[in-house]
């Protein structure tokens, strides 16, 4: 480096030889830098392809044995070599759906609070704090859920919900431990809130101030500005944020496995145990002995991968349509 720098300094005084050498070095250097950067970019794509290949490859024995029936069958008995992911899909859908149902409104409300209500200094403190919620490792959140949240839910929340809404089958009688689909959903709610909140904060911040001021000048109250201007202009982005949160909830393995109680039946009541695709992999893979058992868990991975990639592609498609549509037209 220093040689070339000094060469640059003396270049006018020296012959064409030095600058020729330098030019050649620069051509090689430019190509090399481009080459390794391109290679790095291609590696990122290759990793995704390779992940897909390895997961599907691992699942081949189960795919060839069960085909698509794996998705609907609810029998999962490793001792008898019978596997079906129906109840896991159900558990995944219920926990994630419930988490989104509960988490999305709260998160969007936080986004609104941070952009429209909070004084600047307060927002600058609360915003990062909400994001810190996402930084807590899932194993610690799950551990907290197991020892603190589950007993509390079992002792207080479940009985009161059962007492008030007991006529609905989803609010059945509480079990003894508090390890339940309901508790798992609450943990997932805590995990999706910071994701959706931070995206929607950026989203609401991008709503043109003239529109909001215009509405306010016409006499709209703060809520009417939100209802009439902020939410309609950002609705597609908010949907994309929710899908991203959903993708996070679907794939969470550790925290869910700690609090869901590893049940293997589909039960109407949220207060019973259950299991999800990701949590089943985390719980059973280390102890899986037969090839078919492992392959079935890989098959769960395939389902999870397909749902996860679809959710992310969908979110990015919606997000792109939203931002490009807003900017161009």
């Amino acid at each position, binding site marked *: 480096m220093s040689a070339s720098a000094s060469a640059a300094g003396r270049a006018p005084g020296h012959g064409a030889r030095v600058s020729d050498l330098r030019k050649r070095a620069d051509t090689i250097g430019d190509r090399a830098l481009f080459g390794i950067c391109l290679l790095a970019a291609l590696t990122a794509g290759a990793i995704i392809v390779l992940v897909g290949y390895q997961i599907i490859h691992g699942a081949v024995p189960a795919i060839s044995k069960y085909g698509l029936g794996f998705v609907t069958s609810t029998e999962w008995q490793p001792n008898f070599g019978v596997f079906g992911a129906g109840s896991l899909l159900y558990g995944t859908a219920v926990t994630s759906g419930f988490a989104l149902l509960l988490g999305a409104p709260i998160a969007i409300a*936080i986004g609104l609070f941070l952009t429209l209500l909070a004084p600047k200094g307060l927002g600058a403190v609360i915003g990062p704090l909400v994001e810190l919620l996402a930084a807590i490792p*899932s194993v*610690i959140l799950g551990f907290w859920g197991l020892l603190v949240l589950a007993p509390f839910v079992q002792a207080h929340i479940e009985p009161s919900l059962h007492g008030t809404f007991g006529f609905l089958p989803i609010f059945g009688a509480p079990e003894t431990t508090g390890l339940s689909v309901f508790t798992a959903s609450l943990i997932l709610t805590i995990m999706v809130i910071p994701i959706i909140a931070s995206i929607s904060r950026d989203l609401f911040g991008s709503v043109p101030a003239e529109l909001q001021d215009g509405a306010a000048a016409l006499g709209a109250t703060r*809520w009417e500005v939100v209802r009439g201007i902020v939410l309609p202009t950002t609705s597609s982005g908010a949907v994309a944020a929710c899908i991203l949160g959903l993708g996070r909830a679907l794939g969470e*393995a550790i925290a869910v496995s700690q609090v869901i109680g590893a049940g293997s039946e589909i039960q109407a009541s949220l207060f019973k145990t259950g299991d999800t695709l990701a949590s089943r992999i985390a719980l059973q893979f280390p102890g899986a002995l037969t090839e078919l058992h492992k392959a079935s868990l890989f098959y769960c991975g395939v389902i999870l*991968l397909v749902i996860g990639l679809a959710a992310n592609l969908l979110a990015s498609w919606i997000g792109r349509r939203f931002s490009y549509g807003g900017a161009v037209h």
Partner: protein
Amino acid sequence: MSGQLIPDPTAPLTPSGNLRRRRIVSRAAEVAASAAAVAAIAVLVIVIWTVVARGAKAIDLDFIFTGYPTGVGPMLLGTIVIALVATAMAMPLGVLIALFLTEYAGARGTRLLKLTLDLLNGLPSIILGLFVFALLVDHKQQSAFSGALALAIIELPLIARGSQEVLQLVPKGLREASDALGVARWRSVLTVTLPTAIGGIVTATVLAVARAAGETAPLILTTSVFDPKAFSVNPFEALPNVPTWIYKLSEEGNPEGFTEAWGMSLLLVSFILFASLGARALLARSKRKLSS
């Protein structure tokens, strides 16, 4: 009131009727939004308070520096090794991807590459665990290296996106000055762009490490069968590590184990919180410095 043609000039200026209702609705919405923010902060405070209150009892010098059963030294050491190996793989690759995005990629390339990074970021970590298991562990043995590879894939999109944001902030004037002097692109990148952005790149990396350090799912499949007494830094064997040990203790249901797990949780959480808060503050500062 509707019958009155001339409003009473002495009536107090308070909203009534429809306007009053609208104000109340608006006020209620404001209270609800504030309550949502308070609730989220409350959950954060409760979780951290629990970890601190229950974990502080477990922590002393023996806990940090000795092996099982008196302490968790080997797990801490193993986690550090795994994080270092993962970062050594992810950081160069991530920075190169960021350079590709800022220096070479056209509009379509940028869009495709960013989508790829988003997809990588969205992959559930348990899937990465299965992937690395199939790639390196199956029919062979567990190793810290394979766990580190999974964590590297988690860190990669975070480092790439973070570095790209910082690289974009490098003042155009610096590059233009360099170009005007006839300096080749690779020299400009190595001697002007990267040195200017290095602070931001490092903090983006620290944020990625903080995110990856607590990941458990990939590690249970790749480095979970280990000797909790042995201090080791060899990445080609299964190394003890904090997340899988917390997971194991939480599944066992033994009260002494719980105390140990709270202690490790406190160490892990404090590392993650300090690293991410510190890195965030530094990142904001270096971005401000670059853009001013």
